[in-house]
């Protein structure tokens, strides 16, 4: 990969839209503009000005589309390189043709995320921020967007910096005892060293705990609705969606395939999956639907097990209990507007139990809240200070730091300082890799500012 080659890609989402934007970044951006874009007014492309004109096929001279074009000269652009954007009509065919034209000028199709990667490589943003930009684009919900925005502003980077600070302090102590044995430093203060490491571990642990939440906010959750036939799963789905998405009849076994819809509860993106009712059946098509439902159970983040509260606990209900055993499940007691006959065994195995009446909608809001509360624990999610790990890369780096630190803590009583220092340095390096930082001579600076050294 050469940084100097010029890349291009369609920057608007696939499909038909009002406008389609083709972005070009690199040395040849201006040349591409001059070749295929003819402005209505002479004077060519002026940096950071929109101009109106036509895109022509250079080979045939044929006019491909009317378009607006803007050229942004480096470094004042998204990638800090020369950037050209062609805003044409949004039809997919048109956009594809324009892109093909651009590529025919000797430009390479960009890899996914390459524009942002260049912005990072060119020093415009740090690694966490680069990732955040990707997340902003992919945000599926309000809270996902908020989280990404905070990360881009550097909230996570600051927390990582706190961890580094603690580790540097611990390392400075260890190094001082190693390098200045003849100075009057007193006995090795293992407590102070452990305290600094403990503080770092605390922050790391807290960050690791947010990983699930961060991932949930970023990617959303999948919620699987299961229950015996006619328990009211499809009615519940429609209630949750506020629309008649699933066909509701009184005939058991109406839903044969899985119906999938995405909604937002309280800022949480939820992928709802409605499934065929689970029962013994000889109908091959229905049995296939049931198998599909059962297959989905292990992958779902949460299961809503729907029971008909107006009927007694049945053999089919037992099938459901068996199927969801060991999974995070909310028991949804439907038809509570009717007299209750259901006695649900072993209620404690559910993470929650919610009574609803899907037909009237009673209890559905409470159910939504209960679903959210399963994933968004911290009320802190609303506060400005909320920081969460949302990427596996961050988690892996911190997990590896955590491992070095527990190795450190195990070794502390033996006080093999130079081995302890190696563990601390490895942990520092792992933590630094989140933000793309490496420890330099900060340790010595700390030693000299905290100890009176020199004989």
């Amino acid at each position, binding site marked *: *990969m*050469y*940084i*100097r080659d010029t890349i291009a890609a369609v920057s608007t989402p696939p499909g038909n839209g009002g406008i389609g934007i083709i972005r070009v970044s690199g040395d040849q951006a201006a040349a591409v503009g001059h070749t295929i874009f003819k402005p209505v007014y002479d004077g060519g492309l002026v940096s950071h000005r929109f101009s109106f004109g036509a895109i022509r096929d250079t080979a045939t001279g044929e006019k491909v589309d009317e378009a607006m074009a803007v050229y942004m000269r*480096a470094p004042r652009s998204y990638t*800090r*390189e020369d950037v050209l954007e062609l805003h044409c009509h949004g039809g997919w065919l048109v956009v594809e043709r324009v892109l093909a034209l651009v590529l025919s000028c000797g430009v390479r199709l960009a890899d996914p995320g390459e524009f942002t990667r*260049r912005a*990072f*490589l*060119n*020093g415009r943003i740090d690694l966490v921020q680069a990732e955040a930009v990707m997340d902003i684009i992919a945000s599926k919900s309000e809270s996902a967007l908020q989280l990404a925005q905070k990360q881009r502003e550097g909230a996570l980077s600051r927390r990582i910096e706190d961890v580094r600070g603690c580790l540097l302090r611990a390392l400075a102590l260890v*190094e001082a005892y*190693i*390098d*200045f*044995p*003849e*100075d*009057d430093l007193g006995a090795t203060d293992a407590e102070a060293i452990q305290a600094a490491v403990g503080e770092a571990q605390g922050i790391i642990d807290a960050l690791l705990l947010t990983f699930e939440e961060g991932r949930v906010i970023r990617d959303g959750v999948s919620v699987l609705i299961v229950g015996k036939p006619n328990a009211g799963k499809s009615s519940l789905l429609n209630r949750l969606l506020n629309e008649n998405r699933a066909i509701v009849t009184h005939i058991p076994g109406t839903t044969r395939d899985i119906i999938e819809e995405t909604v937002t509860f309280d800022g949480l993106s939820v992928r709802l999956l409605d499934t065929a009712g689970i029962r013994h059946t000889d109908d091959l098509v229905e049995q296939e639907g049931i198998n599909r439902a059962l297959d989905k159970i292990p992958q779902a983040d949460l299961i809503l097990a729907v029971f008909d509260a107006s009927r007694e606990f049945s053999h089919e209900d037992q099938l459901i209990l068996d199927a969801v055993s060991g999974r995070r499940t909310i028991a949804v007691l439907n038809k509570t507007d009717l007299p209750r006959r259901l006695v649900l065994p072993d209620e404690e195995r559910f993470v929650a139990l919610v009574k609803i009446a899907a037909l009237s909608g009673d209890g559905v809001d409470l159910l939504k809240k209960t679903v959210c509360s399963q994933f968004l624990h911290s009320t802190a999610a609303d506060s400005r200070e909320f920081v969460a790990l949302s990427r596996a890369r961050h988690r892996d780096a911190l997990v590896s730091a955590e491992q070095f630190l527990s190795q450190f803590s195990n070794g502390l009583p*033996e*006080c*093999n*300082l*130079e*081995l302890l*220092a*190696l563990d601390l*340095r*490895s942990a520092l390096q792992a933590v630094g890799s989140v933000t*793309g*930082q*490496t420890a*330099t*001579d900060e*340790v*010595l600076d700390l*030693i*000299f500012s905290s100890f*009176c*050294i*020199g*004989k």
Partner: protein
Amino acid sequence: MMTYDHIYDVIVVGAGHAGCEAALAAARMGCGTMLLTINLDAIALMSCNPSIGGLAKGHLVKEIDALGGEMAKNIDATGIQFRILNTKKGPAVRASRAQADKQLYRLRMKRVLEQQTNLDLKQGEVTALYLEGGELRGVELRSGIRYLSKTVVITTGTFMRGLIHIGLNHYPGGRAGDQPSVGLSDQLRTLGFHVGRLKTGTPARLDSRSIDFSQLETQFGDDPPLPFSFSTDRISMQQIPCHIAYTNQRSHDIIRSGLDRSPLYSGVIEGVGPRYCPSIEDKVVRFPDKDRHQTFIEPEGLDTIEVYPSGMSTSLPIDIQIAFYRSIVGLERVEIMRPAYAIEYDYVDPIQLHTSLETKTLRNLYHAGQINGTSGYEEAAGQGLIAGINAALRVKGRDPLVLTRSQAYIGVMIDDLVTLGTKEPYRMFTSRAEYRLLLREDNADLRLRETGYQLGLVTEQEFVLFAEKRRMITEELDRIAVTRLRHSESQLEVLARHGLEDIQKGTTLEHLLKRSDVCYADLADLDPVSRETPAVIREQVEIQIKYKGYIDRQMEQVEQSKKLETARIPKNLDYASVKSLTTEVREKLSKNRPDTLGQASRIPGVTPAAISILSIALKSSSWKETAE
């Protein structure tokens, strides 16, 4: 100006710890060498503390010795107290330290120089380099003589424009009692070198007859004393103790009362001093909560009454000095024989050097020691050795010797200096070495002896001894890897005695030795062959087995960094043409001009992203070169 009618291969300017090693290395490699000094009676003089070694410094001395340098042998012959520091910590951070008889140390080094073939010793002050057509041709002396040479090594220590401070009095001097070197640094500046100013200091020398030693703690050396050099069998000098004393609140009050006449605090001194070796007034001001500071009263020799109070350097006026030293318990009646003083001197920014210590600015010119912004005899000697070797290699038309960061502390030090430069006097610490577990005192010979031998600095006889040691280590490692416990009656009895009943039959000795509760001496109980293993072999085997996991981890890190360390940056690379670099990074790189990507990555402020960009730029430009 008269021109001397002989062309030397190497001229070394300055006969301190750097200059002596440089001159000996060049001469031993067969080059016609001349060593010039302002004062032939002050060769290898210990201008400050009368000791060699310490943490990381001891490591340097062992490396110098492994390469065939002189420092270790010199201290072994003249040392009067030897100690290993950090014995309770791991092998990587154990370090040797010795007190020297200062006069014997100097005289022995002078004798070694005098007996060296290919080496001329001359007294004189170099005032300028002699250039022809912009090329280095030799040196010019204040006495009006010009000496010609193919290469020049400058090791001026604190002498260039040296300025001594005692209170608000100051006067030119290279060291108390010696003239400074004037003129040379001005010429270096006009040649394009960045000349800066540093400061260091030394405590008073005290009359031991006026000290009540019964009031002080006594500190003896190790018995038996262990030598520095791999070639020394045993220490035969008489050994004597040091003493420990402490300052008190009254001492600190006296110091504070003199601060208004301190050249440091009144702004008279412009040079930057070392943070790790602060003057006593610095300690009192920066750490006001500390109620006492420790000092070792070190003897300056067997035959002298002069003693050196370590850590008590000062530039305060003489009346404050007298009152201050006398405030220390045991020193109430102390007489000062030589006052403490601070000294400012010129140094040249070491980022203007290649890793060979040749300057980037003027070909065939090498800098070593305090001129490069370092402090310490050991740091100076390490650089002097490398500069002397590389000047000789240049004369012979061979590639320079560059030690890597994973090979030697000397490599770490030189890489730090030429990559980062320095703003304060640079001292070696073990924490500067990222591969600390690999760079131990005990394996300095395994790391460097072969190199020294190939250079011609290690004698045939020394190398044969080393090769035998290396062979025995390998053999013993191989042997214990396959020797298994048979659980004979005597073995079972020994295991039971050590509480090791859980050890399975068939366990290898290597496996056994990995346990933290087993040492090599225990093996010797179990296995008759182990009993015969010499101590130095035992030590190596034990360390290499016990720390294997950690050592392997470090070797892996070395492997990982190799890609960056071996990626060379063209000398003439125009950083302005690497368009994606930020202005800040571009300025830093243009100033430092690193030789490799590894060096570039260690420059503060050069981000990993910038390294990616550079590495891509290097690839694409080499691609362009082949295309054209």
